[in-house]
């Protein structure tokens, strides 16, 4: 169980500032979803939280990792990229076993205990029957589960997931989100994820952080963050919002009514697109550390 606190994070990439003064706190065992339109800085924020980009500000984990090195951090925090590279000829078991890398010696040979942890991760995600399959033969949903299994094999306390449901159909999206929620509840994992689907984010995450051009436009419970006005302001999209039986917002896109309204929406959209930050390029580096 781990609490993650990010304070006043700022990331500079070339001449752009895709993350500009973002603060968030994720309680132990909680799920915070980072939302925002394309180019808002979601993925950049997640990569910075994972220590993969240099940043200003602080990120602390409580309890802190045993040391300040990359291996110690990897034993606490697991990151899954938006489109993880799955070498097509590698077997599922061999790929999940790579999640044990932070625990291996210099030669990097996994022992019996490491294989047991990897097998347990496969079992947890109902992938035992897939262990011998080549990664290139898996479907989209299966690939996401395998990527999660690899992250679980790290035995982390914090999971950082970048668009875990991207390129998945509705059924697989729900399957993966249910899986993450079950892992969070059963294993006490702290989850920070980026998500495109606002309704899905509202259904599963306890807290939302809505980014707009690198800054926090709103943060809090889903019902507080996802209002029609705020969605129109940040996404330049028209939605209707209703509450489900447990008070979580459900968003439905609606067409703007009237020619004037439609024209206004289009001109507002084109103005804001021209002011939007450019997409970030991937960089290497490390932040000031993740100690308490």
């Amino acid at each position, binding site marked *: 169980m781990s609490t993650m606190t990010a304070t006043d994070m700022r990331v500079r990439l070339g001449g752009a500032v895709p993350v500009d003064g973002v603060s968030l706190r994720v309680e132990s065992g909680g799920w915070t979803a980072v939302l925002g339109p394309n180019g808002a800085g979601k993925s950049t924020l997640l990569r910075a939280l994972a*220590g*993969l980009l240099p940043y200003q500000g602080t990120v602390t984990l409580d309890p802190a990792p045993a040391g300040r090195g*990359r291996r110690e951090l990897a034993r606490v925090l697991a990151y899954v*990229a938006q489109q993880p590279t799955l070498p097509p000829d*590698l077997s599922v078991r061999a790929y999940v076993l790579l999640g044990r890398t932070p625990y291996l010696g210099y*030669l990097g040979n996994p022992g019996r205990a490491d294989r047991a942890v990897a097998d347990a991760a496969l079992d947890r995600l109902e992938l035992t029957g897939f262990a011998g399959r080549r990664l290139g033969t898996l479907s989209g949903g299966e690939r996401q589960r395998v990527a999660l299994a690899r992250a679980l094999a*790290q035995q982390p306390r914090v999971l950082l997931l970048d668009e875990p449901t991207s390129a998945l159909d509705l059924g697989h999206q729900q399957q993966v989100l249910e899986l993450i929620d079950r892992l969070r509840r059963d294993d006490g994992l702290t989850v920070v994820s980026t998500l495109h689907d606002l309704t899905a984010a509202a259904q599963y995450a306890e807290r939302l952080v809505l980014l707009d051009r690198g800054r926090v436009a709103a943060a809090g419970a889903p019902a507080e963050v996802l209002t029609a006005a705020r969605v129109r302001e940040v996404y330049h999209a028209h939605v209707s919002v209703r509450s489900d039986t447990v008070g979580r917002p459900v968003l439905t896109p609606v067409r703007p009514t009237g020619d004037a309204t439609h024209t206004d929406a289009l001109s507002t959209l084109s103005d804001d697109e021209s002011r939007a930050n450019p997409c970030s*390029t991937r960089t*290497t580096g490390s932040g000031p550390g993740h100690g308490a």
Partner: protein
Amino acid sequence: MARALRAMAAAAVFLIAAALLGALVGAADLTPWGVAATLLDRIPFVHLSTGMTPLDRNILLQIRLPRVVLALLVGGLLAIAGAGYQGVFRNPLVDSGMLGSSAGAGLAATVAIVFLGGLGGGAVPAAAFLGALAGVSVSWFASGGTRRGALDDGTGGATATLLLSGVAVGMFLTAAQTYLMQRDSQDLQQVYSWMLGSMATATWTQVTEALPYAAVSVLILLVHARRLDVLALGDDEARSLGLNTGRTRLIVIAAASLAAATAVAVSGLIGFVGIVVPHVARRLGGPSYALVLPLSMLIGGAFLSLADTAARTVISPAELPIGVVTAAVGAPVFVLILRRTQAVRA
């Protein structure tokens, strides 16, 4: 595990068979029993009657065996270097020849021989190593490899750019080397023989001079095999797993360059071994570098030994440059790998 054992056993058998063939085939008519007995007789306290004439014994021990052993060594080094480069650059189409490494080694070795001959034969692999590092570094920088995210470019553009850069750098360095060699020798055949590779002048001295460098480079590469598996996941995920990607890359490039340079220093430029053999190793043993590296060594040694045997017999008593044989086999396989890679990407 079973697949790994089978693959290693098959590669070992292939190596032994290639070595025996190399020892048996040639102008002198040697028998399998004679060869085996001569080798066993070298073991302390073992005395066997070989049935071979002193001339045949000398041919075997001083001419043929050093040639076979050198071919095994050079083939193994070129193959493991190629596998190392492929792991570091996440690119199945690179080897020391494609990255300017071999050409850099060749130029540096030539400079060492022509201008620094007094340093002794053992210094040539060291000079070749520095030249190999310089060659691959220039190719890397010229291709924009220092641009952040260059290796994670999934479009294939980074592959083509790196190859083009390596070929351009290699051609330039080879041209410089050719000029130097022609300045000091009027014998064009000797120049081109070196450029296309040859085992014809193999001696035990060359083997013993190359061995320390070979041992160091192979050991370092094998130790880093599993790190190459992690690197295959992409820089972000590798670093999120605790790997120091920059340090790993530097160490593997240095070790692969030392292996390639050692091979070039004793045998000249031999192409395609480092591309073709790791590909065969992957088909045999799977994608993990924990197996690809040692398999590549065994298969590469066997392949080059067979190529050398073919080179000295197909137009006997004349000899083909060994690079002609490896290119004749390797170039079509390279095209097949290229097409397969493009098909997978599509």
